């Protein structure tokens, strides 16, 4: 769907390049996660992909055509969900959606979307009366108004309660199942882990790691198992390599009836993020 080759970009007032030769591909029907600390170049990359910035070097193709050669009809194909609330506060939720829907040739029926996102009963309320979570849900519906082939989602579940976050993630999965492609950024690593087929970590304008979440966890994790036991009100931790799982020591422990938990010591995407970008998650918010 998208192919990015040696993408370089520098803002006019900056001496240094914000993007220093990014290359990646987003195949059709996949969910691609793009992660990195602030200032790493995520937003710049997204702005370039949605044609908000055009003075870049390198080659970007969308459906085999150069992105630079595409006119405004390109926007008929994509939906963008911004992190911050984007709506006319003195118009109702429905008036907002009707306005944005009429900017496109292809329009979906908003009723099922509003019902699914739990906003149908509040459709005639002014957006200024909406809570933050309601505004975020409205943003997501706005991104789907033109029945896009590709979605760009920026922190889509940020600020949502667990139930609505679940609905939204299910809708993203259904979008993918119908053949849609998704480019997503999020600081919620469990969302990325759950949704993405491939993840790229960007730091200082360079992609420092790129693979499926599973492969990244295997590559960066430890092939070990940790067993916690309770003996005489005392918690003990025992660590075994995978090749020790048939050892008498491990079998004996399993038969001892003192085991409380067993964990594989695979790493998390959060640990990988910290390792490859050198930044802790909370530092870039």
């Amino acid at each position, binding site marked *: 769907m998208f192919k990015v080759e040696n993408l370089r970009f520098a803002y006019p007032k900056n001496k240094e390049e914000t993007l220093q030769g990014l290359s990646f591909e987003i195949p059709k029907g996949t969910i691609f996660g793009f992660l990195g600390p602030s200032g790493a170049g995520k937003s710049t990359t997204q702005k370039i992909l949605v044609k908000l910035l055009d003075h870049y070097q390198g080659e970007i193709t969308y459906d085999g055509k150069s992105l630079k050669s595409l006119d405004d*009809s390109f*926007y008929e194909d994509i939906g963008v969900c911004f*992190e911050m609330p*984007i*709506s006319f506060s003195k118009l109702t939720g429905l008036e907002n959606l009707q306005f*944005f829907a009429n*900017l496109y040739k292809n329009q979906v029926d908003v009723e099922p979307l509003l019902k699914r996102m739990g906003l149908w009963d509040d459709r005639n309320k002014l957006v200024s009366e909406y809570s933050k979570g309601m505004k975020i849900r409205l943003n997501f519906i706005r991104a789907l108004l033109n029945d896009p082939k590709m979605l760009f989602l*920026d922190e889509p579940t940020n600020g949502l309660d667990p139930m609505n976050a679940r609905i939204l993630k299910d809708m993203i999965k259904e979008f993918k199942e119908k053949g849609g492609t998704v480019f997503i950024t999020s600081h919620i690593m469990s969302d990325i882990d759950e949704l993405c087929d491939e993840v790229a970590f960007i730091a200082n304008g360079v992609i420092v790691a790129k693979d499926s979440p599973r492969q990244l966890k295997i590559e960066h994790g430890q092939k070990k198992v940790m067993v916690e036991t309770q003996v005489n009100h005392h918690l003990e931790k025992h660590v075994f390599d995978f090749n020790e799982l048939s050892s008498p020591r491990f079998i004996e422990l399993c038969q001892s009836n003192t085991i409380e938990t067993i964990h594989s010591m695979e790493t998390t995407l959060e640990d990988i993020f910290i390792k490859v970008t050198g930044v802790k998650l909370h530092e870039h918010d």
Partner: protein
Amino acid sequence: MNMIKHLVKHEWLRLIKYNLLIASLFVSFIWIIASAFLTYEELILFLPTIFLIEATAMTALLIGAEMYYEKKEHTISSMLISPMSTLDYMISKVIAHGLNTLLIFAIMIVGFIFTFDIRLNVFALLLGTIFVASFYVGLGLLLSYFSKDFTSLLVNYMIMMILFLIPSILILAGLLPESLISYTQYIPSEISLRLMSLSLGEIDWTQAFIDIGITLVATLLMYRFILIPRFKSFASEHLGV
């Protein structure tokens, strides 16, 4: 064309919902009430200035207020990632605000007809308003590009007006040769005043065509070389996509 129709319709909806139309109607009623304290001759004398203020300051400030909301609520960014072109956006602003100015003029004229039996050349008023409002919509957009908030937009507008007056002031103060006085008739505020005076009294069509030509060229240059090329960077500024 459908896109522009939709955008103009929505501009009007927002002018109403954000109380901007009410604000401009309120100003027009103040003018009507104030006219009751004037003689017919005084009104004829002040009317071009009233039209000028409505078509210039009010237009630029209304568009500035609207842009302020669009930026604050990030809706301008959301429009940017739609098939709407920058030209569609600009044309819809010119049409919506031009119509708004004409509506205000229509209300004021009806009001003045009630207070005095005033006679106007409606075609000339329409002609002047279209060109002056188009230029000042552009100026309002330009000011919002460079203003952080609505207060700074007001300050920038005042600075711009003072800059327009500086040549005349320097000549009056003897700091510039008096021979340059004839050139001051081509500063935007002077041209706009003449265009807004077309509806009252006899029309000097040669001067009118020169004024329309200058305004048209200035408007097109401003949109072509400043407003349209800078729109994307202005609208996507602070956008954390």
